[in-house]
């Protein structure tokens, strides 16, 4: 069976590609628009765990608008990109979807998204960085729904053991803390920075931004061989050169486990980690903190998150707008935080009691104000993969940062429009 299954696997690429050809021949009827007050079903794709919570919100929404029946299909984060592209090809898209903020640019370039009605959804209501990630050529194609930004998580108990009483404020102190963890508190590594693999760019990007670097220059060309980029790569490499971070990166690695055991007493990640640590290791309570990213020129993090998009082919655009409005109202945004611990993209929602009462959120709110998104690029997936490779080059292979920066610049030049 094993043998047969594998033999079949070769043809999978072939078959799917051909399937895309076939499917695109049919489907894709846009039809007329259904008015918001007519009886209808609104189909929505939600991602991962959020998809399940989104169904609950859909039911709440149904009480207010009984004529609109919201039907949510949860799609796994790992397959969402592939599924969406296949759906575009097949003309089988839902009316609306939650979409990773880095993917909006790609689907905009496929002409799959409906431009946002900026009279209803006003730029000023959202965190600027979250809004900016949805904009291509001055037009917004997604409404920010929730945001996440990367901050520094560190073990306070082990830091005390190593003689450090406060969060590192800059790169120098971050280095010193990592070394102290290892030398004085006897931890295996001083920190965890993702050394390679899909998504390693997310750990590195805050280094680039904090050094004052950018992914693209003013003309929209890659700016990855800049002195700031070299500096960010060198800083990243430091942790591997000194044995302060593991070079091993197995798929499915869970940093929380090593954080709890003390093996990796410090790491950079998003707000969902607060929940993960609390749920998986309740015993760690009071032994760790989240802090703003240590600064170089600035303390600038990367902002990701999800946007709500309406597809251009949908026949229920009015209803989709109503649902988007509902989901981005400050009250619902606060509710959503209560449900999924995702941070509101609407600034006003941070004044809701749900959020003002929550502990430890100020660090994220503060970091969000100085965060920057990734530019909306149609080939972002590839662009990100090149950064992942550059990270692996300096982290795992010990390649020269300047040489790697030059390579990265060349590798990404053909990936901007």
């Amino acid at each position: 069976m094993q043998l047969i299954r594998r033999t079949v696997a070769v043809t999978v690429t072939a078959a799917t590609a051909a399937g895309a050809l076939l499917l695109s021949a049919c489907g894709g009827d846009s039809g007329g628009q259904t008015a918001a007050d007519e009886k209808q079903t609104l189909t929505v794709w939600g991602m991962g765990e959020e998809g399940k919570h989104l169904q609950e919100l859909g039911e709440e929404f149904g009480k207010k608008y009984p004529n609109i029946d919201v039907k949510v299909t949860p799609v796994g984060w790992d397959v969402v990109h592939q599924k969406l592209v296949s759906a575009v090809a097949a003309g089988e898209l839902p009316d609306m979807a939650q979409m990773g903020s880095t993917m909006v640019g790609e689907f905009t370039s496929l002409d799959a998204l409906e431009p946002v009605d900026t009279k209803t959804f006003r730029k000023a209501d959202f965190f600027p960085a979250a809004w900016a990630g949805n904009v291509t050529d001055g037009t917004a194609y997604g409404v920010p729904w929730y945001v996440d930004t990367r901050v520094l998580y560190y073990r306070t108990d082990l830091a005390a053991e190593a003689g450090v009483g406060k969060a590192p404020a800059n790169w120098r102190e971050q280095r010193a803390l990592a070394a102290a963890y290892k030398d004085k508190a006897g931890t295996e590594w001083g920190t965890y920075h993702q050394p390679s693999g899909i998504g390693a760019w997310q750990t590195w990007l805050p280094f680039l931004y904090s050094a004052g670097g950018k992914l693209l220059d003013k003309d929209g060309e890659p700016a990855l061989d800049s002195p700031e980029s070299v500096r960010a790569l060198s800083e990243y490499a430091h942790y591997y050169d000194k044995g302060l971070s593991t070079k091993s990166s197995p798929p499915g690695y869970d940093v929380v486990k090593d954080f709890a055991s003390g093996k990796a007493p410090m790491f950079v990640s998003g707000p969902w980690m607060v929940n993960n640590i609390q749920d998986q290791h309740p015993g760690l309570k009071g032994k760790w903190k989240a802090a703003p990213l240590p600064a170089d020129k600035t303390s600038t993090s990367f902002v990701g998150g999800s946007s709500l998009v309406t597809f251009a082919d949908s026949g229920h655009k009015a209803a989709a707008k109503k649902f988007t409005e509902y989901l981005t109202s400050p009250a619902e945004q606060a509710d959503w935080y209560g449900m999924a611990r995702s941070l509101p993209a609407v600034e006003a929602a941070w004044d809701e009691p749900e959020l003002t009462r929550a502990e430890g959120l100020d660090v994220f709110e503060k970091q969000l104000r100085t965060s920057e998104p990734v530019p909306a690029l149609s080939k972002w997936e590839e662009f990100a993969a090149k950064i992942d490779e550059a990270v692996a080059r300096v982290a795992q292979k010990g390649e020269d940062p300047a040489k790697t920066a030059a390579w990265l610049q060349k590798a990404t030049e053909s990936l901007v429009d």
Partner: protein
Amino acid sequence: MAATSATTATAKATAGTAAGPRRRRGRLGVQNAAGWLFSTPFLVLFATFMAFPILATLAMSFTDFGLRDVTDPFSAEFIGFENYTKLSEDEKFLKALFNTGYFVVVGVPLTVGAGLFAAVLLNSGVARMRTFFRVGFYAPVVTSIVAVAVVWRFVLDPGEGLIAGIAAEAGLTAPDFLGSEALAMPSLIVMAVWRNLGTAMVLFLAGLQAIPADVREAARIDGAGAWQEFRRITVPLLRPTMLYVSVMTSIAFLNVFEEPFVMTNGGPDDSTLTVSLDMYREGFNFFHMGYASAMAYVLFTVILAVTLLQLRLLKDKTR
């Protein structure tokens, strides 16, 4: 047996000639029509799900089919052999090709050897609890790769893994198997051999049981020892099975995808990136469908060449 059927065939042919060529053609025509009729369902399915995609992929490999063309397939541009020339200069792909070769050259002989060894052992009177061991060796074949990955990660984990634990008991430090460029691929090979030797074993067992007992008996009466019996009787008579097992294992290993996909994701530093994994990424992460199709055809050509080579090497000796 052979002689009898040959005689019958001649007799039939003679009868056909006697009845005249016209009638024979008519009967065969009906037979042909019936044959076509019965094969139609298969042929339709084959044409739709195998032949068409295969040809479409070939066509696609000469285009720049990408993400934008998904909505409008005929906007893809014909670029001749450009994808293939690009592949020949693509360092990543060449590395993947090398890694795949490494996997096959080391993994296939190990799988075939271990499978044969297990089969001979479990077929002889020496082994006790034969059924138990047969099931044991075969179990990995039917187990889901995800479950297998969980177990192997536990075995190989440098921190809390089984091997690390044993090494620590002995006062040694276990290496980071999946995190080291030199050890990641060998680790995956060991895992793949473990997963596939069950299939080889079952085929060899069938082959062993087809060897007539009287041949073995005759050898023993002539004074052959166990080793001589194995070398002079078992190995030659198992050759057709050996050919089948090595061809099938080679094809499977040339397509290796699951092990690196779930265990290392091609890393560290692409040291376990295989052609199938590279193809998957190009095709589905980046939607470089034209490029991925060209990769599929390069892989297909390699598989064809390796198979023909094996057929020639192993078949000639059986004559």
